[in-house]
């Protein structure tokens, strides 16, 4: 119980640190005055002074930090600098389902792909098919995701759109699940696959290494000696032993993607998720909007990490004891 309390205390400390860091990046970067930026290029000193007072930039930093956090998390009425009267927090929550759907689809593809390639690589260790899979995984890791998205668009929307393979691809954009479940799935399949490519590369490598380590384990040697068939050996015994570390990695990446890692894909495929919202804020320099998405994302990642950590301890009681230092 003491462990849980100290973990919670650490989490709160980290959350506080993140909020200070993000606030400092946006409003206390030396030499960049937000009021100059809001007033626009070439504004007169009087106008800048008025803006500074109107937005409260002339108050001391700790006060501004507290009011900002109040606007963001307690009264939740932070308004945009660009579109006055637009509530930033509700916008973030409205965009979240799009990102969630995209990342869920991507997770489906990347778990399936990683399992297939990881198992193939481990089962045929050292043979040409293993080398081929390793090379493919390395290439998948090396492709910039936004470029791959452009190429997928080029092939599926323009060059081969009329062929049987891509005639089902809808125009870019998002369809809510409530409007049409089929349209929702169609709109998300290609973006999710694109997003999954790099993760398939990463996870198949991790899984292959873990499976090969697990094969050296005493439990596996016993199972083999008992005469367990190869399918049962790989799928039931080895995968269970090696899946755990990949699972905790999966949780981290899933949370990172939900927290805005999918920004580039959302921009390329014109999906109105949280990342796309951030991107819109970039082009208009809407600092409250960007700050809200970044801060909510970071908080989400920290809380998700803590949950995964707890889950991991439940699944593998050995973790809590011994050295968790590293």
């Amino acid at each position, binding site marked *: 119980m003491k462990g849980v309390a100290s973990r919670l205390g*650490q989490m709160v*400390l*980290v959350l506080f*640190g*993140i909020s200070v*860091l*993000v606030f400092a*990046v*946006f409003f206390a*970067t*030396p*030499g*960049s005055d937000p009021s100059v*930026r809001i007033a626009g290029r070439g504004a007169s000193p009087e106008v800048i002074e008025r803006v500074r007072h109107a937005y409260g930039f002339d108050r001391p930093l700790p006060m501004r930090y507290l009011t900002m956090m109040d606007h963001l998390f307690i009264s939740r009425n932070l308004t945009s600098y660009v579109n006055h009267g637009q509530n930033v927090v509700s916008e973030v929550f409205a965009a979240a389902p799009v990102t969630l759907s995209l990342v869920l689809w991507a997770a489906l593809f990347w778990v399936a792909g990683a399992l297939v390639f990881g198992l193939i690589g481990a089962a045929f260790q050292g043979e040409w098919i293993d080398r081929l899979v390793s090379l493919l995984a*390395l*290439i998948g*890791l*090396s*492709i*910039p995701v*936004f*470029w791959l998205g*452009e*190429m997928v*668009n*080029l092939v599926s*929307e*323009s060059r081969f759109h009329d062929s049987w393979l891509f005639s089902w691809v809808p125009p870019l954009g998002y369809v809510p699940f409530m409007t049409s479940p089929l349209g929702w799935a169609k709109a998300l399949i290609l973006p999710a696959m694109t997003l999954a490519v790099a993760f398939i590369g990463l996870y198949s490598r991790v899984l292959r290494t873990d499976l090969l380590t697990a094969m050296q384990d005493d439990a596996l040697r016993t199972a083999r000696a008992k005469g367990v068939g190869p399918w049962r050996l790989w799928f039931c015994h080895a995968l269970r032993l090696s899946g755990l570390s990949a699972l905790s990695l999966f949780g981290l990446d899933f949370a*990172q993607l939900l*927290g*805005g*890692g999918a*920004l*580039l894909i959302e*921009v390329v495929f014109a999906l109105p998720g949280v990342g796309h919202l*951030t*991107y819109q804020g*970039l082009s208009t*320099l809407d*600092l409250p909007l*960007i*700050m809200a*998405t*970044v801060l909510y*994302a*970071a908080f989400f*990642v*920290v809380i998700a*990490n803590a949950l995964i950590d707890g889950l991991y301890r439940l699944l593998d009681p050995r973790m809590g004891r011994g050295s968790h230092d*590293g």
Partner: protein
Amino acid sequence: MIFSATGRFLYRRKSAAAALGMLLLLILCALAAPLYAENVGVDPMESSLAGTVLRDGKRVDIMQPNDNPLHLGLSPIGPSWRWGAYALGADSQGRDIAARLLYGARASLLIAFSAACLCLVMATFCGLLAGYCGGWIDIIISRALDILWAVPVYLFAISLSVVTVGHDLSFGPFHVQPDSLLLPIGIIALIYVPYAARPIRARTRSLSSAGFVLAARGLGASSLRIVFREILPLLAETVLVLSPLIMALCLLAESALSFLSLGVQAPAASWGSLIHDGEGLIYSRPVVAIAPGVAIILTVLALNALGDAAQAELRARGRR
């Protein structure tokens, strides 16, 4: 001794040798950028919408009527198989893609390399301090790095770029130009410090309780001497193995930032900003976006292969 070790490593691991060869080739190409631009006579930064180019013995406009049936609007000239100006075609400003690709290689490789070096220096400093001192210094540094790492990397880089890139900045006596390459270099280096510092700290911890360090301390060596003469030389291996992977990450981050127009500022080019330029022409002149993407993939692939080989070598050495 270090040269012979590198030579043996490259001889044993052919993939590393191939990757290194590829990287050297790319660097040579980047260095040859002005040579190419002068040879074919194009300016990679200046837009030339009214210019003409010699192709198949005829003078043709760089901006040509569209291929669509109505011939509305103009689209830039496409690629050709002949050596010469506009071999890869032009972008929407009428600039030579091949020349911009070469100049972009300079920016991309320079930023990735400097960012990786800066990142590793900072990470080594943090990791060494945390790992060697332990105690509360370790706790503070580790927690600070945890906080940095909890913010999704690209979002953090984007946030920092939004407030710095493209604005006149003054840090005390230093003045940074709005389009200075120092900004993307610093930002990209900073976001990967926590990632690089973790293995360095772990290695320092295991080294600082090793027998030879205890022996040195027993002989009365100062902490500074232990860190610089005993630990750092052995730590260099860890850092060196990490460096290609960090550089690959930095290159990808740079291309993403430039793709969002937050890295290298126009009219200068980097591979990421070239893909951004190609986005508008993706259906009519896809080569504008394809070429820089292929360049990024080749570079990152070579760096990753080099890093993998180095890591495998280190592991094999540990087993022996």
